[in-house]
């Protein structure tokens, strides 16, 4: 019974979805090729593009500074752990929604090497097989408007979004809840839950058999979800528990900073004890209505992102918000830098790749030209950090290839292959 169930799961649920990537799953040995690799990959998102002249560092690749008052200035303390990347374009994508969709997918389609997945999900498919969660998605007020192209960045298949969890209390229960009881009690609980999942798979498979081909993908997705649930039940190993987050209205604008901190703390804790190797934190979404009220700002972030240069007060408020996002990124980077690896071989940051992504370039222009990226972490010694790389219109798909390869993958394209192949030149 159990054997048949598992083969069904593979054949119907995961098999269908994962088919384009199975060659990755079966090729761990190839990860050793091509230099050192990172153990984990983290995406950090903040919305509504940027104002380039307030974002750009000054100086050369290795001798650069963040000008006083600029958006990246809060990162000065961790500058030598960063690679600032300028001048990458999203080809064939424009505007808020187009940018949000292209940001992590590089406009890939089902037939492309990346299968139309976002990079976090693509990497998770390859490296997430032996962790409790293939990936974890954390959000802060991403869902006030529900799920849509504007509010989601992570794709497990073309047109299929992975929903981030906006509620730190839910996250805490899911990740660390079982650790509260004793080991024996937890094991017994897991066994019983496993038995329930077995039953649910039988029921979902039976319903699937009654459906026409148009409706079967729903039950395939359900079976895939049950496989993920099953995997999540297993082995919450000894973890350093982060503080339990305070309950409260996670949709309340004023709680944005507190929720952000709680989510970062739990993300680092989950990564530290090996629950997953791929995580993302999405702060709001494109066209974000968030007001940085905690900074004394009164207008919504999206409105501020479209302020003309002549509107000095408006631009100053936008820059203030953007500097706050930079501080959150720094908090994440420093937290990783101060957490040693379990094997004491360096810090988590040394072995991680962290990507700060945005969905547009100059927000006033509504386009995806020269979209700013910041990388942090040494990727296991693969990359020389403390650099500022300037490109003139390279495809950001190449950055994605570099990131995949830093995680030990061997794909040569990511996203739309028409606009370029291979890793980003200079990012070695």
């Amino acid at each position, binding site marked *: 019974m159990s054997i048949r169930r598992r083969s069904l799961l593979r054949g119907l649920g995961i098999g269908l979805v994962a088919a384009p990537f199975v060659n990755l799953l079966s090729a761990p040995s190839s990860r050793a090729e091509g230099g050192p690799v990172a153990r984990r990959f983290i995406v950090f998102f903040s919305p509504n593009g940027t104002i380039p002249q307030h974002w750009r560092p000054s100086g050369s690749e290795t001798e650069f500074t963040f000008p006083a008052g600029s958006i990246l200035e809060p990162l000065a303390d961790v500058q030598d752990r960063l690679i600032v990347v300028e001048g990458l374009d999203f080809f064939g994508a424009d505007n808020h929604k187009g940018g949000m969709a292209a940001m992590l997918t590089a406009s890939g389609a089902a037939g492309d090497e990346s299968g139309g997945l976002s990079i976090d999900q693509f990497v998770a498919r390859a490296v997430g097989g032996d962790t409790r969660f293939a990936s974890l998605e954390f959000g802060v007020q991403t869902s006030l408007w529900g799920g849509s192209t504007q509010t989601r960045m992570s794709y497990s298949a073309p047109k299929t979004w992975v929903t981030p969890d906006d509620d730190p209390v839910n996250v805490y229960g899911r990740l660390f809840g079982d650790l509260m009881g004793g080991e024996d009690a937890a094991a017994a609980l897991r066994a019983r839950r496993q038995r329930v999942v077995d039953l649910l798979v039988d029921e979902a498979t039976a319903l699937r058999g009654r459906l026409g081909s*148009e409706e079967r993908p729903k039950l395939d997705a359900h079976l895939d979800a049950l496989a993920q649930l099953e995997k999540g039940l297993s082995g919450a190993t000894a973890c350093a528990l982060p503080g339990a987050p305070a309950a409260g209205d996670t949709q309340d604008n004023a709680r944005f900073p507190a929720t952000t901190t709680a989510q970062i703390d739990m993300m680092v804790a989950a990564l530290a004890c090996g629950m997953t190797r791929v995580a993302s934190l999405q702060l709001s979404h494109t066209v974000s209505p968030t007001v940085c009220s905690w900074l004394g700002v009164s207008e919504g972030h999206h409105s501020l992102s479209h302020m003309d240069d002549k509107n000095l007060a408006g631009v100053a408020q936008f820059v203030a918000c953007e500097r706050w996002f930079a501080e959150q990124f720094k908090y994440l980077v420093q937290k990783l830098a101060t957490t040693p690896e379990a094997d004491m071989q360096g810090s988590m940051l040394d072995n991680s790749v962290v990507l700060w992504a945005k969905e547009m370039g100059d927000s006033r222009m509504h386009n995806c030209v020269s979209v700013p990226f910041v990388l942090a972490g040494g990727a296991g010694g693969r990359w020389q950090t403390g650099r500022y790389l300037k490109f003139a219109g390279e495809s950001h798909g190449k950055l994605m290839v570099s990131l995949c390869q830093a995680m030990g993958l061997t794909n040569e394209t990511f996203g739309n292959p028409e606009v370029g192949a291979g890793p980003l030149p200079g990012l070695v």
Partner: protein
Amino acid sequence: MRTIHASHVALLLALAACQNDGGAAGSETDGDTTGTVTGTGTSGDVDPTDGGGCPSDMQFFEARVWAPILGTACVGCHNFEGLAKDSRMVLWAESEEGWLEHNFAAAREVALVDDGGVSLLLLKPTNQHPDMHKGGMVVAPDTEAYDVLAEFVARSEGTFSCTGSDGEGAVGCDGGGLRRVRRLSHVEYNRSLQAVLGAPTELGLGFAADTVVQGYTNNAGALVVSGLLADQYRDAAEKVADLIVAELPARLGCDPQEIGEEVCAHEFIARFGKQVFRRPLTADEQARYRSLWKEAAAVEQFAGGIRWTIAAMLQSPGFLYRTELGEHAGDGVYPLSAHELAGELSYLIVGGPPDDALMAAAEDGSLKDLEVLRMHADRLLAGADADATLHRFVDEWLHLDRLRTVPRDATLYPELTPQIREAMLGETHRFAAAVYRSGGSLTELLTANYSYMTDALAMYYGVEAGAGEADPAGFKRVDTGAASGLLTHGGVMTTHALPTSSSPIHRGKLVRERLLCQEMPPPPPALDTSPPPVDPELSTRDRYIQHASEATCAGCHSRIDPIGFGFEHYDAVGRTRSMDGIHPIDASGEIVLTDHTNGAFDGADELAQLLAGSPDVEACYTLQWARYAVGSDAETELQCVQDELMAAFVAAEGRLDSLVLALVGTRFFRERGGAVVDGGETTTGGDPGTDGETTTGDETTTSGGTTGAESGPVTSPGIDTQVTQDSQWKKGECNTVTVINTTDAPITWQVVLPRLGKVQNAWSAEYTQDGDLLVWSGEPQNAEVAAQGTTSFGFCILY
């Protein structure tokens, strides 16, 4: 190329296109807006084909190319003065004499320019031209809009033929709707959980947010179970199981001491299971739960077994999905089962599971009688439980679900407390319910001069508190002194405003999109949309008038802003005002570019009068309600009910409750299937029987290399196949084939199967025919199967 009959386009959808996606003054748009033109519904109610034939090139251009695409997404730049004035395509506004002929010729000329084998008319708007398109991507490939442009190119090149495209791409309701399953929305789930628990709960309301389609959270196509949600279901199910087990002796319905634990457990499984699944359990299901109970009870005693039984049922597809699969009645028609009907009716009207009376009518089958069905519809509509579903429609229709969280500057507007926001929501809910329950019409909804307020809310607005009796929450009927109904409620005005000011853009866009059903495209990229600095010398109105002064902005903003100006008497937190700072209010405006709603007005009352009398708004309201009630945004599905709904709504002079009864009376509400819709559906049906479940049929396993004769094609060595017959009927069958790689190396597979008939459709694989054999190989995404991995494909054949 895919060809589409213009005659099949849903005519109710007046899908013009101009939408502010982060517009010049920094508006925040819907989560569900469309960044590119995807639909091509005709504007207005004129069938361009004169009743179903093939439209002429000019008719096709006007209805399918101009109205939804060039005339909305392109003409803003491609005009005499626009950004694209020097491009190869300069279009004339509809006000110019001879515009249609000129624009037709201009578009045709561009269509005939060939660039590397592809027409310029396809390369440019998709931004696939090597020289790029300054306006970015305004039409995405793989959309209906793209197909329309491709058809126009083919027509221009003389390669298009109206014949020979039967079936493919046809839009219509010939099939009576798709046999499908619907996952419960979170709100429906929560209500269902409450019914099972017999007590209030909010466990389902905190789940990870679902995909929202056209503003609605119950879209059948969009609701699926993710890994995260499966975990949240598990958590909620275990909590509810604990609560029920805590009340066990009373909840059991039998005494285990008296009749034996096993007998009692089996009774409980049958009785409780029927409540949870909204139908009797099948024999297979009973067996599954009996076995689960037995195993769990062996370790955790009787009550522990019950606990895990409850927890499993509440995570089961039987609870989480409603089925609309029906029972085959011949000729491919599937009348819904009585239990399916009970669920459909109940979730439609009260947003929760069937009550005892409805379940009884399902048990004895009487619900299949239309009169009995209508009787229960009337009964449920009259009950208090129907309010919540109506409230939710109003919330999602007008985006009031954002009222509680929409940010507002606390220094400027300290009076807008959470309590006031809550009271605003209560006001709109009570008002809508009162109009609905009194047999009121859409006109009354839009023009009423009364509302329902708590005294605190009345004081906040500055109107006289009501004199009558208050309801339990303190709301009284109040004279508002305005005649603008729902639209100027504090909740609507507050939701559609900016943190520090009113917003003519948000409010105009609300009317355009939610009352006129015209979607607006985002502003073109690479155009600097920065608003001018805030200038205390200028009123809000004057600042926004800047939009109209620039040709590239005016294309869309002339449709939005002049409507929004009508609401300038209402500030950012829903209070009336006569001054905007130091400026007197000017609330005059105009509705333009609609079929039947155009006109000038001064203030919200006159605007409301224009809207209330318009057939455009009547049609749009019907469409919005249909999207919500049917839980669909697919034209193919909505078309099954639109005509009947519209006719009933008009006949009832816009009575709001007439739509519910009209929907219940449609064939779509009670049946599925009937004819082939877009391939595959009727062939995969099979007869599920009345027990609600069938087995998945025979399975046969073959090993690689053994099926072939000495010569001819063979299945790749190392590949095992497992063929599962999904359904079989007199004339054919459908199968799923699992391809299993038994080796430790990836294989680019080929599977050889006997040819039992003509292949009608196939998915996830392609085939060639070799005598009596079919040789199958994968599509690009599954052509290779990993070491020890599996993939699958499927096909249907006709004998």
